[in-house]
């Protein structure tokens, strides 16, 4: 699993990459009350705002961490946004993206580096 400075995690699963937010991010956000997901088939570029999360505190965007095509979204989050707080690293993944090129995850942090990053 790799981590971004924007507090997202990425996990390779066959030929797609699964994306979610870290426990640290879900704690900082507080109770999540609304999630808006992208459409399957959308072509995304690294840095695109692809998901909107609203918590009791504020609205946040999740950005595409890599270039590629959205192949699957976790629709369960739309009805149960609280899952983002309960299981951010597991059940509450946001979307799967098929990378346009290999190697896009290489520069992201591993778990130890991310732990240092959030200090």
């Amino acid at each position, binding site marked *: 699993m790799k981590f971004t400075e*924007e*507090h*997202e995690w990425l996990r390779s699963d066959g030929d797609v990459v699964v994306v979610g*937010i870290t426990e640290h*991010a879900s704690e*900082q956000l*507080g*109770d999540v*009350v*609304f999630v*808006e997901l992208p459409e399957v088939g959308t072509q995304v570029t690294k840095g695109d*705002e692809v998901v*909107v*999360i*609203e918590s*009791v*505190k*504020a*609205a*946040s*965007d*999740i*950005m595409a961490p890599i270039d590629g095509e959205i192949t699957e979204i976790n629709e369960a989050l739309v009805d149960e*946004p609280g899952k983002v707080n309960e299981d951010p690293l597991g059940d509450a993944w946001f979307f799967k993206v098929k990378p346009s090129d290999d190697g896009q995850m290489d520069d992201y942090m591993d778990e130890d580096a991310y732990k240092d990053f959030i200090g």
Partner: protein
Amino acid sequence: MAWPERVRGTDAGLISQIKLALFGRNRMSDALSKTPLHALHVELGAKMVPFAGYDMPVQYGLGVMKEHQHTRAAAGLFDVSHMGQVIVRAEDGYKAVAQAMEGLVPVSLLGLAENRQRYGFFTNDQGGILDDLMMTNRGDHLFVVVNAACKADDIAHMRAGLPDCAVEEITDRALLALQGPQAEAVLEEIVPGVQAMRFMDVAVMDSAYGEMWISRSGYTGEDGYEISVVADQAEAFARALLAHETVEPIGLGARDSLRLEGGLCLYGHDIDTTTTPVEAGLAWAIQKVRRAGGDRAGGFPGADVILGQLESGAPRNRVGLRPEGRAPMREGTPLFAATEGGDPVGIVTSGAFGPTLGAPMSMGYVPHELSETGTPLYGEVRGKRMPATVADLPFVPANFKR
């Protein structure tokens, strides 16, 4: 995720204060004031944020949602010591203070009974609201509680406007709020006698924690009390309250969602110098005696505007809004009359997800002709016009002990 995340139009707002604290890298907590309960908040694991110049708890371990629900189900303890407590005296006693103060607020203070409290607001010459406040007849003086962010201005305003009165800021007392259906039972154990108080009653009581100034009021839509206690007893008193299993500490986050469900205005957001009391739906706080035809009609700043609007209505009104779906319409969201085209007809001044309501809720201003309950409107969220319906306030019925 995008840090800092997108929140529109909340520069002075609670949300942006929360953002600053949660996401800002440079906290300048050294420059912030601390309430007498500061050490207790930290010990209880609160997330502290700068708010109105104070380092305040925005949430504790339960989190905003559960803290909100706990307050509605049992009892919540809030530290509101950042608010201004002010005593106003005149040589000739309460009547003289009340008469003078009626020159600053459109409220009947001469008609306020001893040990009773009234809500009101300081107005400006345009009929706008400088601050909202609670005022109490304490027999030989007037006791006033004002918003933290406005207190220096309010005190200067009173000193200038009440030249024959002594305006004393009380700085050696904390202010706590105990709110929720269990508040009465809990406080009665510590301060016997509070049970007999009715909504908006005020009492000075002796207790194991020194002299307390207690009012049966609050900012949550629940029954409860606000308790002024000497600063050096505040922590012991708070610990005694928290020792009850029905009492949890509640932060500013839940305070905001509770008051919004209760349809209560937050100064600087839902009301400010550009909104009149009539536009804001606060005309109920202006007694008949201060209105046109009353014995003490007018005589406060902006009376011509406010009395005129009381007669013929305001051009715009504060309304409740229920957005469709689950996405909150936050402060600053522009409101439209149609799904496409046209200029904005209004704006959201507060918006959040209502934990008790189980749905998003907002308050905002719309033209009078679009203010009727059931009127369909559209709020532009992230570039899309989302439907919302004008709704009655409060969103969650109040639970006061009248």
